């Protein structure tokens, strides 16, 4: 952990420098515009301080995003509609539900593909085809159709998360469940083990390293799905709504703080799976 700290900080510092420089470059036209209308000559320090402090900048400076984050997380009550924690929770709940549904569906399909030859030949092409459809195109339809049958709120968003997250689980689990070698399967055969016994005692434990890797990808995909699912609902609540609302009113600082929040959320979720993965595989003697 400590060994990777210095490289990470170096990269962060580098990004910070580029970000501040880009903010000056992108926001300068508006600063010059204002100065011209006011009839004043803009010095370089004045230009820099203006580009880093505009209300609706093209690219907000990092400290502006930081201030917005601080204001909307720590200084607002979490029940407030203006609290980013509240919106993050809305997105998180859809992400987690979609992730659980997607993982379940993914495992079921993988088991079917591994044990049933017909499913092996027929399901996989559909699974792959499902991921070639742009989610942005299909998300509004899912929301509208489910709304028409009286399902709204959390579940439609979770369905979109599921749609994205089941895919890596299917692919990973098919590979994982097939990872035992010919000798291990022959061994099971010499004991006259049933297919179910081979599954529970050999295939499933052997698939665990693949499973956790799939879960990490599925979790990230699930978060993207939940945010996309919030866009067509008319921007009521959630990080997706903050993104959309921000773009309606040109609130770039709000957009960026929602983005940072989403990234932090993804990092936390994927990191949590990583910790569970390490502990589990170590206990199983597989890491």
């Amino acid at each position, binding site marked *: 952990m400590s060994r990777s700290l210095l490289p990470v900080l170096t990269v962060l510092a580098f990004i910070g420098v580029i970000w501040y420089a880009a903010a000056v470059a992108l926001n300068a036209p508006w600063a010059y515009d204002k100065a011209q209308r006011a009839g004043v000559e803009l010095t370089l320090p004045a230009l820099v301080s203006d580009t880093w402090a505009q209300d609706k900048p093209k690219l907000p400076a990092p400290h502006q995003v930081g201030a917005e984050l601080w204001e909307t997380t720590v200084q607002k009550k979490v029940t407030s509609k203006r609290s980013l924690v509240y919106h993050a929770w809305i997105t998180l709940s859809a992400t987690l539900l979609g992730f659980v549904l997607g993982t379940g569906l993914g495992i079921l399909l993988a088991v079917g593909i591994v044990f049933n030859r017909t499913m092996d030949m027929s399901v996989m092409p559909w699974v792959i085809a499902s991921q070639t459809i742009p989610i942005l195109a299909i998300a509004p339809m899912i929301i509208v159709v489910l709304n028409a049958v009286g399902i709204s709120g959390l579940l439609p968003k979770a369905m979109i998360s599921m749609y994205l997250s089941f895919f890596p689980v299917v692919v990973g689990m098919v590979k994982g469940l097939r990872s035992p070698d010919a*000798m*291990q399967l*022959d*061994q*099971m*055969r*010499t*004991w*006259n*083990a049933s297919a179910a*016994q081979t599954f529970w*005692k*050999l295939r499933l*434990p052997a698939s665990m390293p693949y499973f956790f890797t799939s879960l990490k990808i599925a979790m990230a995909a699930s978060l993207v799905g939940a945010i996309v699912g919030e866009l067509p609902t008319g921007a009521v609540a959630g990080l997706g709504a903050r993104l959309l609302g921000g773009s309606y009113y040109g609130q770039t600082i709000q957009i960026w703080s929602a983005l940072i929040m989403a990234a932090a959320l993804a990092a936390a979720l994927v990191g949590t799976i990583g910790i569970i993965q390490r502990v589990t595989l170590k206990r*199983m*003697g*597989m890491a």
Partner: protein
Amino acid sequence: MNKHMNEATITQTIETAPGTPVIAARGLDLTFQTNDGPVHALRDVSLDIAKGDFVSFIGPSGCGKTTFLRVMADLEEPTGGSVTVNGVTPAEARRARAYGYVFQAAGLYPWRTIGGNIRLPLEIMGIPRAEQAERVRRVLELVELGGFEKKFPWQLSGGMQQRASIARALSFDADILLMDEPFGALDEIVRDHLNEQLLKLWERTGKTIAFVTHSIPEAVYLSTKIVVMSPRPGRITDVIESPLPKERPLDIRDTPEFLEVAHRVREGLRAGHQDE
């Protein structure tokens, strides 16, 4: 034996008649269809293995020794001829859990302890929990791994892992032990030690053992019967009944009798090569 009798009757006849072979192969053929044309893994192989025999199969790669063992275990289907194990087909013998099979690699599950690994076939066979524990303890003693029950495979040396895998094959009390080069990946010293232990184990348990090996000294040291095989097509070229006594200290390998048997095995292997 009346060919028209159904198999159940035959089983009974064989089990009650002493001296009938545990494994009997008649005119066994096995041809693999590959992209490069058919490969004759076994051609007209006939052999009897009596109860309590220790039979070694020796020959160069491709002579079909492993394939023959796998046919006995119902892991390969012969394309011609017949083979019986305990008087029934290999498939029925497998379903009756008549044999324990030891593979070249120990194949222990890393997520199970040594005890857990040995318990695995017992769990699959539905043996009661209390008895499982008792059997695990007993077979671990048998392979001199008492006290290692709670260790994980990675905590054991290669030789110890292979002993654990033998213990696992013994745990469900099959009368037949099929071993496919179980010590092939181990060094000479460990191998000598395991050979000695295997002989003791065989003496104590009275199992019928079929043992595939590459090593002439190993085959001669262990066996009551040595089957020499040669490749393309895989066939038996010589069957040697060992004149060595049942009691075999390691230094028996320096006696003239031992060297004579070893010589005959070597001759048999050479003869198999000259036919090509």
